[in-house]
């Protein structure tokens, strides 16, 4: 995707968000029943911000058109596989595992999987592969145990 297209798509998204914010502010309870000053209604600033975001979105759209000649690609210079694996591992850990399994187990599983996946070298010798698994295991045990002790016993946090 190039920057022009990305800017245009985000301009549309921001315009919609701004509009939603402005409408949300306009329709927000004006607390007349509490006899507040009309200039201090809670929806005032959201309305202003919504309008400003719409204006900025329009400027962004126009600038995207103007900058067409020196267009640059975005989301390049990176690896989608690495990003996908990282996003999957982190999201599964933060959204699913934490709160479902005891913290020490969820952390151990996450750190081991992450370290093992990214330190694994396809085609490397058995020794090197065993070393990366052992390294991941040691890191997982140390991190899970260390953070659990630190937060539970030192900071007195009730772990998830």
């Amino acid at each position, binding site marked *: 995707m190039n920057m022009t297209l990305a800017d245009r798509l985000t301009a549309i998204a921001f315009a919609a968000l701004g509009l939603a914010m402005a409408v949300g502010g306009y329709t927000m309870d004006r607390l007349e029943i509490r006899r507040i000053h009309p200039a201090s209604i809670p929806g005032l600033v959201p309305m202003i911000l919504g309008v400003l975001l719409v204006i900025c979105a329009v400027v962004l759209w126009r600038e995207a058109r103007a900058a067409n000649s020196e267009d640059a690609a975005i989301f390049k210079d990176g690896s989608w596989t690495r990003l996908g694996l990282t996003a999957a591992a982190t999201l599964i850990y933060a959204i699913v595992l934490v709160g479902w399994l005891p913290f020490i187990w969820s952390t151990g599983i*996450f750190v081991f999987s992450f370290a093992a996946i990214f330190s694994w070298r396809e085609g490397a010798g058995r020794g090197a592969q065993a070393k990366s698994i052992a390294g991941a295991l040691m890191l997982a045990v140390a991190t899970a145990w260390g953070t659990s002790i630190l937060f539970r016993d030192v900071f007195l946090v009730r*772990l998830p």
Partner: protein
Amino acid sequence: MSALTDLFAALVGLMTPGMIFHAAWATLLGIVIGSLPGLTATMGVALMTTLTYSLDSTAAILVLICMYVGAIYGGSRSAILLNIPGTPASAATSLDGYPLAKQGRAGYAMGLATAGSMLGTLVGIVLLVMIAPPLAEAALNFGSFEFFWLAVFGVVISGQLTADSTPVKGYIAGILGLMVAMVGSEGIHAHVRFNFGLSDMNAGIGLIPAMVGAFGFAEVLNAMWGRAGILATAKDKSDRILPELIDLWRYKVTIVRSGVIGTLVGIIPGVGEDIGAWASYVAARRTSKEADRFGKGSHEGLTAAETGNSAVVPGSLIPAITLAVPGSASSAVLIAALFIHGIRPGPLIMIEQPQFISSVAAMLILATLFMGFYGLTLTRAFVQVLRVPYAYLMPVVFVLCVIGTYALSQRIFDIWVMVFFGLAGFVLRQMKYPMAPLVLGIILGDLLDKSLRRGLTLSDGDLTPFFTRPVSLAFVVLIAVSILANFSFVRRRVSGLLRRKREERDA
């Protein structure tokens, strides 16, 4: 004189074994975090905030300041050795540091960077002690009208100066931050806004989860997305690491100028260390007698960049402490940490805790001393730190992001907030939206909202006082000039007018 006495007393007060121990480990950890590409100073300070909840307030703030100073300095290690700035603040350092390393003088370059950073921080500390108390006193006269424009000015100027491509992206980031601040119970009538039926959102979006997401999780994604850097270091043939005093004396003007520029850049809301370094570097090149050596291993260029970025740290604390308006993204986290530890930054700081500015200056001095010690003694050891693979580093960072955000209120919801801001931060950064205005918007949203509505209530709905009070008017002019300067037709018109004036005068 009284400021010096206060500073000395504060320094003596910090000289307990416990405080020295905290300063020692926090500065070292900061240098390590800063030197690792992919881990930034803001991320370090945000994560450390979550680890210092249980410390007493002085120790916690000392740890955070040492982490901040250490991380900004630490970025120079990888900038010099790998040509990869450890933090954005060190981008200018790599221009002359890496060529020096390639010439086999990495040790000397790091020594020079250490000296520059120390001197820059010291210049900033002097200005902090000089500027902060009168600024806080002046801010005591600020009313709702002035605070409203101060908040607007912060977001506008930060958006303007930190945007990579076009200022509108900076403005959008700022507005998005302000919108985030609109979620939850508002500060005047306690009316809950935009909670979408979720009771967890009644208290609003926490700054720490948002910051840990935008600077922690987003950095993890960013680091794993990018191609892994090749950690190859040039062999060091430096005969000495300690910089020659004659070198430092020769560049005394550059050092003082860069220190002052860095501090002033730090004072501007939301404009961080990277801009301080670039501004100092450009000013040094413009005035240098050996400008042709810049970019090829110039000692002066390296000194200017490092002095400039380090001076931003004390500079950014000036508005953070006196106005509760952060001078950089890291100082935004520091403001949140101050609130957590019961310290209320803002104009009342000189009344409620008159010694606080001296204490912060003393903490900065302690951090600078440790920075110098580590910088000159552990130069070669840092090379080993840079070899830690992301596969082992990033999962640990993410675990700290998760448990750190959870620990503050012990709510799973905060973890979701962190994840949301991490994903949003990654996408926005890829699309060249700066993060500093977003953070500034989140922190200034409440001030802006309350000041506008309070001001309107006081003036019975009349907008005039927002434009006629002297300080308000000054802010309005500054904001208008910075926004209008973006439009080419305005720039053309102004330069045309100036040219005509000059011609008339010549004629």
